[in-house]
């Protein structure tokens, strides 16, 4: 099922002519015949959920937008895709820039935003050129600028490059950065829907979310809601990396099982080099890691599906999250301790340093994990790690603290014996990895967990 990537392989789809020939900008024509409220209603009906990680219903977010008289409103596209393992927005913007522009025009019209921003991460330097060219093409053809399609609606899209900080992907930090300040997350409330960019009502949406508005308007919200399962409607882009035969971007309609997704030839094609699956991070680096048995089946023994509800089945004890769709697969040769250390280093490096638990805790966790990985750990360090992550989680301003704590918590929860093995066999641990060891059997899950 392909909605977003339907025309991804048409030659020259990056440019306006080919895009328009393949049905591009139809949704704008349709949307401008509707009222903004009808578009919001249509998005609400579609059940579209934010594709950036949290999975908050987009229609609801749009309806929260405050609309005071005489105050401009803004739509900001969050293209600061920096989560390790996630690269779906990059593909979308690189190959289908007009799809994003089209989604932005429709959404701007629905929200009444005359000035719309794309905040893109600084490392995507070449994509800035692609987007700016696409914006110029759209403007030359009358889709942007003053009085679009004689509707009386003006809209301009600006591309703003970030300075390369992961934290600026958090919506309030993004807003601060967009205003030209230091990218520290703001304290909520007030939420951006009330006071966002320059204290004006603002909606911040992910690239994929805004692109998904195009098929919703084209086909109707109800039609879109039929795709998928339950509250996970529509299609989702997944960026698969790690030890699979065919890493890359896949668009799924969220009805597949995880087993099918990893092992079928249509998708990932199984684990590379004939190895076995050891663990999987289903939604980008900050969601909890799952061991093989819990990746394929939930704690109740049912098959796990690739959708928001099924992936988070079992809570943090035995489940994970859909997150941003950065699907990372680890084979039996991978070391979970080293993997966790790498993630801890990342969060240590990217913490903004505003609130104390995250600023100090991430660095502490990284140092302890480094000790364990390089054979200098103690068994008590594992308990200490658990305690530190518990003190960070939920006690910080923004979700980066949680994002730093969850991978460590899940790694200790599911792979504690590997940590202990590392501590007890320091020499061996540095030369040889732990392998599959005991993870073929389902782990014991305490009642009520």
């Amino acid at each position, binding site marked *: 099922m392909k909605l977003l990537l339907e025309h991804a392989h048409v030659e020259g789809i990056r440019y306006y002519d080919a895009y328009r020939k393949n049905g591009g900008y139809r949704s704008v024509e349709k949307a401008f015949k509707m009222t903004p409220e009808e578009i919001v209603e249509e998005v609400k009906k579609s059940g579209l959920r934010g594709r950036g990680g949290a999975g908050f219903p987009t229609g609801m977010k749009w309806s929260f937008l405050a609309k005071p008289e005489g105050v401009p409103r803004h739509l900001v596209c969050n293209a600061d895709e920096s989560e390790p393992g996630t690269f779906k927005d990059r593909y979308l913007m690189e190959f289908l820039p007009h799809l994003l522009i089209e989604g932005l025009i429709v959404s701007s019209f629905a929200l009444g935003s005359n000035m719309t921003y794309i905040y893109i991460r600084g490392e995507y330097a070449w994509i800035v050129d692609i987007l700016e060219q696409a914006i110029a093409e759209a403007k030359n053809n009358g889709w942007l600028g003053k009085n679009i399609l004689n509707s009386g609606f003006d809209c301009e899209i600006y591309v703003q490059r970030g300075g390369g900080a992961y934290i600026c992907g958090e919506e309030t930090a993004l807003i601060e950065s967009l205003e030209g300040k230091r990218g520290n997350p703001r304290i909520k409330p007030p939420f951006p829907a009330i006071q966002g960019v320059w204290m004006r009502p603002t909606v911040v949406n992910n690239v994929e979310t805004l692109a998904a508005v195009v098929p919703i308007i084209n086909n109707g919200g109800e039609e879109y809601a039929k795709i998928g399962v339950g509250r996970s409607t529509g299609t989702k882009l997944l960026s698969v990396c790690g030890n699979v035969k065919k890493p890359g971007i896949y668009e799924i309609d969220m009805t597949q099982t995880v087993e099918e997704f990893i092992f079928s030839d249509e998708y990932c094609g199984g684990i590379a080099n004939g190895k076995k699956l050891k663990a999987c991070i289903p939604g980008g680096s900050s969601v909890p890691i799952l061991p093989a048995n819990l990746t394929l089946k939930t704690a109740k023994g049912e098959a796990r599906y690739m959708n928001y509800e099924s992936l988070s089945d079992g809570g943090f004890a035995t489940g994970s999250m859909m997150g941003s769709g950065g699907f990372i697969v680890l084979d039996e040769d991978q070391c979970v301790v080293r993997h966790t250390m790498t993630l801890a280093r990342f969060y240590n490096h990217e913490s903004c340093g505003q*609130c104390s638990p995250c600023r100090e805790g991430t660095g502490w966790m990284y140092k302890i994990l480094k000790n364990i990985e390089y054979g200098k750990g103690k068994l008590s360090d594992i308990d200490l790690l658990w305690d530190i992550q518990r003190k960070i989680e939920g006690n910080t301003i923004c979700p980066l603290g949680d994002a730093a704590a969850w991978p460590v918590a899940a790694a200790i929860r599911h792979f504690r014996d590997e940590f202990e093995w590392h501590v007890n066999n320091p020499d061996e641990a540095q030369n040889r990895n732990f392998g599959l060891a005991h993870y073929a059997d389902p782990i014991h899950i305490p009642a009520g967990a």
Partner: protein
Amino acid sequence: MSDQKFKVTIDNITVEVAPGTTILNAARMIGGDVTPPAMCYYSKLEGSGGKCRTCLVEVSKGSEKDPRPMPKLVASCRTTVMDGMEVKNITSDKVLDARKGVVEMLLVNHPLDCPVCDQAGECHLQDLSYEHGASTTRYEFDRRTFEKEDLGDYISLHMTRCILCYRCVYTAEQLTQKREHGVLDRGDHAAISTLLGKSLDNEFIGNVIDVCPVGALTDKTFRFKNRVWFTKPVDAHCDCKTCGGKARLWMRGDEVYRVTARKDQWGEVEEWICNDCRFHKKSAKDWVIEGPSKISRHSVISQGHYVGVKKQPVYIDKVIGKDPKMLLDIHTVSDVNRPEVELSKIAGPAHSDDFKNTGK
């Protein structure tokens, strides 16, 4: 609307406050142990707070209309009260546990050099860790260090001690014409710094010394000259044209060692003073002395002064389930020191048996 009052219950003590008041300020109205500590919030500085996380509280009831509890602990300095809100501070184990964690985190990279730190004795972090912290550290690594930076002739920056509360940044932004320092870098290497080594010499910039909760920003004209508990604080004023001229002198004998702004019971500056008053008027002749300053009797600065000791209002019966701190009756745990025993009736030196036989 203006005379409308919100009822908020903090640790089972109800208080009526104006709408828009934060939980922390409502708790300060009650006072005593139910007030959460605050390391970064400063009521005089707009936008401060929310960063240190020591003031986390549990909201067990959102409001009268929406009684759901808040899912996470909230920063009481930035959360406004709702009518009928119920807050748990010291009655919540979750809060005490989280606060202990925050104190530990704050001390992870803070050097334990209190014996050589000028702030010792009036350091908020010292008080906080004494009250809420653990007695030992679990941190076994090297603490972060920084290259030394010179901020000019008046203010000394000791970056290793900084807890990044951002108070000095807000002070410079809101008090002075031009902010010359800010936070550079990020994460645990974020540092207070100026661009290209500029010195801080704006009028009123000296107030950053007073707002700093730790010994990161100290007075160069006072540095290493004396310990604060050897100096005696007196309130004084002068006819300064720039500021109000109301200051606090720290004297030893007739010598003025240091001039600071007057601080209230929460350690916050009452009135900002200018650089001239702070750094240059170091003689008793420049000032009209009003009298000794009121210093909390728990502070080390008031050692030896027991005049006018007033009992704090204690709400033990209301704060259910928590034993008040330091209220052990010595007579219940010790055999000696019983008031009913007349010491003069004992022949020779008193022995513990003398107390055992007569008392019970």
